[in-house]
C-alpha cells in the first residue's frame, strides 16, 4: 500500500494530451472556462436490475477484497449486498486507465484529475446522475463540481477522497519554523543538500503556485495554466532550487528514511508520509504554507459504454458510503469524501489529522489538473504550455 502512490505519482498528470486534441476540435473559442466541450451524453434517469457483475479499474488500495491484507476488505460486503461480483484491475498510471477505459470492457474507474478530464473530453466517461447515488448527498461540498470532475455544473463522477501536498520540515534543524514555500525556494540555500522535492513534472505547478504569490507581475492565476513566460519563470526557479536539493522523492519509503536520517530536512510531502515519519521517530511537522498548496483528488466515473451500469452505480454508492469510505481513506491515507465517514474511522482523530471536514483548508489547495494548450484559466489571447513540455523541462531541471 505504501508504494501505491509511487507509480501513480509519476504518471498522475502524464496523460494530458488527448484532452488537448479533444479541446482543439472545439477551437480556441471554447465556451467554458476550461475550454472543454465534451460530447453530449445522457446520464440514466433511473436504475434497473443489477447485472450480477461489475468490472472496475482502480488505483492499488482502492478495491480491496482482503487478499492483500485480511483486514482490508470492502468488496465482499458489496458482493453480498448487491449480488454484483467485482472484477477489478489495478492500473499503474492515468495513461493505462484511459487506455483500459477505451476498450469498453470496464464499467467504472477511479480517475485522478488528469485522467478524468481526458475521459470526459473523449466521451469515454458518461455524466453521472447523482440522484441515483444516495450517499452523494453527504459528500463534502468542496469536492462537488470541481474543475477536475465536472463540466459546466454537470458531475461526471463521484468524489472518492483527496489529499494535499504539504511542506514538511525537521523541527530541530529548520528554524524558525517555516510558514511559506520560500523555505524550499528562495531560502533553500540555507539547507543546501538537504532540500527535497517531489519527483514529477507536475511539481512545476508547485513552483508556479509560489510565484503566483511572490511575483504578482507574472499574473499567474492557475498553476496548471502557464503561458511560456510564466512557465519559464517557474522552470528557472526550479533550476535554482536544484542546487540545494539533496534528492527528489517519488516513493513513501525513500522520503521517510531521508527525514529520519536527516538527509532531508525540508520539502514537499503527503500527510500520510508525515504521520509515518513521525511515528517512526522523526521530528517533523507538516503544514500548508501561506501561499496554499497543490493536491490531488480522485473521482469514480462510469464508462459511457458500461455493460453493467446498474452494478456500477451500486459500486459508486457503496464506495462513498460512510463505513466503506472511512475504511478506504484510512487504508490509503487520504481525506475521505463522505462527511459522515469521519464518524466511522477506527482512529477517531483521523479526519482531524487529514482535515477532511475543513473546507477552509481545502480552499487553499489547487488540485492536480492537466496542463493543455488551451489555458485552463480561460485566457484565449495566449497559448499555454502543454504537459509534454512540462515533462521535457523536468528532465532539464534535474540536469
Amino acid at each position: 500500500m505504501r508504494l501505491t502512490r509511487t507509480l501513480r505519482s509519476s504518471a498522475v498528470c502524464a496523460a494530458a494530451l488527448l484532452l488537448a486534441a479533444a479541446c482543439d476540435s472545439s477551437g480556441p473559442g471554447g465556451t467554458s472556462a476550461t475550454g472543454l466541450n465534451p460530447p453530449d451524453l445522457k446520464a440514466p434517469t433511473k436504475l434497473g436490475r443489477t447485472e450480477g457483475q461489475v468490472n472496475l479499474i482502480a488505483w492499488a488500495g482502492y478495491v480491496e477484497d482482503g487478499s492483500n491484507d485480511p483486514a482490508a476488505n470492502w468488496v465482499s460486503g458489496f458482493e453480498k449486498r448487491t449480488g454484483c461480483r467485482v472484477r477489478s484491475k489495478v492500473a499503474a498510471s492515468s495513461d493505462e486507465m484511459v487506455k483500459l477505459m477505451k476498450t469498453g470492457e470496464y464499467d467504472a474507474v477511479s480517475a485522478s484529475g488528469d485522467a478524468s478530464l481526458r475521459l470526459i473530453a473523449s466521451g469515454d466517461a458518461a455524466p453521472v446522475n447523482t440522484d441515483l447515488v444516495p450517499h452523494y448527498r453527504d459528500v463534502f461540498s468542496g469536492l462537488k463540481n470541481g474543475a477536475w470532475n465536472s463540466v459546466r455544473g454537470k458531475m461526471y463522477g463521484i468524489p472518492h477522497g483527496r489529499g494535499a501536498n504539504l511542506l514538511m520540515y525537521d523541527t530541530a534543524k529548520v528554524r524558525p519554523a517555516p510558514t511559506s514555500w520560500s523555505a524550499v525556494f528562495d531560502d533553500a540555500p540555507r539547507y543546501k543538500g538537504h532540500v527535497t522535492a517531489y519527483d514529477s513534472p507536475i511539481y512545476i505547478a508547485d513552483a508556479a503556485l509560489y510565484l503566483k504569490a511572490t511575483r504578482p507581475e507574472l499574473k499567474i492565476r492557475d498553476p496548471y495554466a502557464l503561458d511560456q513566460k510564466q512557465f519559464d519563470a517557474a522552470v528557472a526557479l526550479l533550476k535554482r532550487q536544484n542546487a540545494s536539493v539533496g534528492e527528489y522523492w517519488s516513493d513513501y519509503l525513500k522520503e521517510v528514511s531521508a527525514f529520519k536520517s536527516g538527509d532531508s530536512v525540508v520539502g514537499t510531502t503527503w500527510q500520510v508520509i508525515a504521520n509515518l515519519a513521525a511515528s517512526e521517530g522523526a521530528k517533523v511537522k507538516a503544514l500548508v504554507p501561506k501561499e496554499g498548496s497543490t493536491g490531488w483528488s480522485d473521482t469514480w466515473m462510469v464508462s459511457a459504454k458500461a455493460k453493467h451500469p446498474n452494478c456500477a452505480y451500486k459500486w459508486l454508492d457503496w464506495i462513498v458510503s460512510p463505513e466503506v469510505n472511512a475504511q478506504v481513506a484510512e487504508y490509503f491515507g487520504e481525506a475521505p469524501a463522505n462527511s459522515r465517514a469521519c464518524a466511522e474511522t477506527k482512529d477517531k482523530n483521523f479526519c482531524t489529522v487529514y482535515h477532511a471536514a475543513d473546507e477552509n483548508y481545502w480552499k487553499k489547495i489547487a488540485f492536480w489538473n492537466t496542463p493543455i494548450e488551451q489555458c485552463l484559466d480561460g485566457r484565449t489571447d495566449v497559448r499555454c504550455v502543454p504537459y509534454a513540455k512540462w515533462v521535457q523541462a523536468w528532465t532539464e531541471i534535474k540536469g
Partner: protein
Amino acid sequence: MTTDVPPAAGRGTVRRLAGTLHRRPRLRLALLLTGPLLWLSVLYLGSLAVLFVSAFWTTDSFTSQVVKVWSTDNFHALFTTPVYRQVVLRSVGVALAVTVLCAVIAFPLAFYTARVARPQRRPLLVVAILTPLWASYLVKVYAWRLILSEGGLADWMLAPFGLSGPGYGLPATVLTLTYLWLPYMVLPLHTALEQLPAGLLEASADLGARPGRTFRSVVLPMVLPSVAAGSVFTFSLSLGDYITVQIVGGKTQLIGNLVYSNIELNLPMAAALGTVPVAVIVLYLLAIRRTGALNSL
C-alpha cells in the same frame, strides 16, 4: 496380460521415432536449433530491431499516441540537447569508474583466493564471494542507502579521521554499483589466476625479476583478457542501471532514468535514448574483442 500391450506399443513408437531421427540428421538439427534460434532472432534481435525502428517514429503532440512517420528528430534532439549529452557522458563515466574500481579491488582478492589461500579453503572463499548474489538487489541497495545516510555507518567510521561519508550522489552511486557487480569481476580473475602455471612465476623469479616486474611482465598480460571479460559484465550492468541511482544517487539522473521518464508520453524518444547504451556496449564489445577476452568468457 492385457497390461503388456500398451507399453510394448509405446516402446514401438519411441523406437520408430528414434529410427527416423537417426536416419535424418537434418531433422535432428532442426529440432535441436529451432528453440534457441527462435529465441535469438525473434525475442532478442527482433525486439532490438523494433526498439531501433520505433526510435525513428514520432508522437502526436496532442494525443501522445505514437505516429509511424519516419523522422530523425529524436536522434537530432539526442545529439543537440545539452542535458541529454550530459547525462549520456555521465552514464558512461559511471560505468567506466565502476569497472576500474571493480578491477582494482578484485585483483588482490582473486589473487588471494586463487593462489595464496590454502587449496582446500579456496572453494569456500569463492562461495563467500558469491554470497552477495543470493540476496535481493533492492535489499542490498537499501542497505547502502542506510550506510551512506547522514550519521550512518560511513559517517561514523570516517568521523575519527575528521571526514564524513560521501552522502547521496554520484560517488555513492559508483560505490554501490561497484559493490553490486564486484563478484562478476572476481570470478573470471580467480579462474585466470588459478590457471596461471606456477612454473612461469618461478622462472621469472629465477631470471632475477622482482615481484613488481613479474606482475607487470608475466601476470598482467596473462590475466588481462579475464579483466576485460569481467569488465563486460560490470560495464554493461552499470550502464543500464537506473534503480540504484534512484535510491542512493540523490538528484543524479542516468540514461536509464531518462528512458523511464519518457516511456509514458514519448515512446519514440525513450527508444532513441535506449539505443544509446546499446551502441555504447557494441562499441565496447568491439574494443574488447581486440584483446581476445571474448574467448575466455
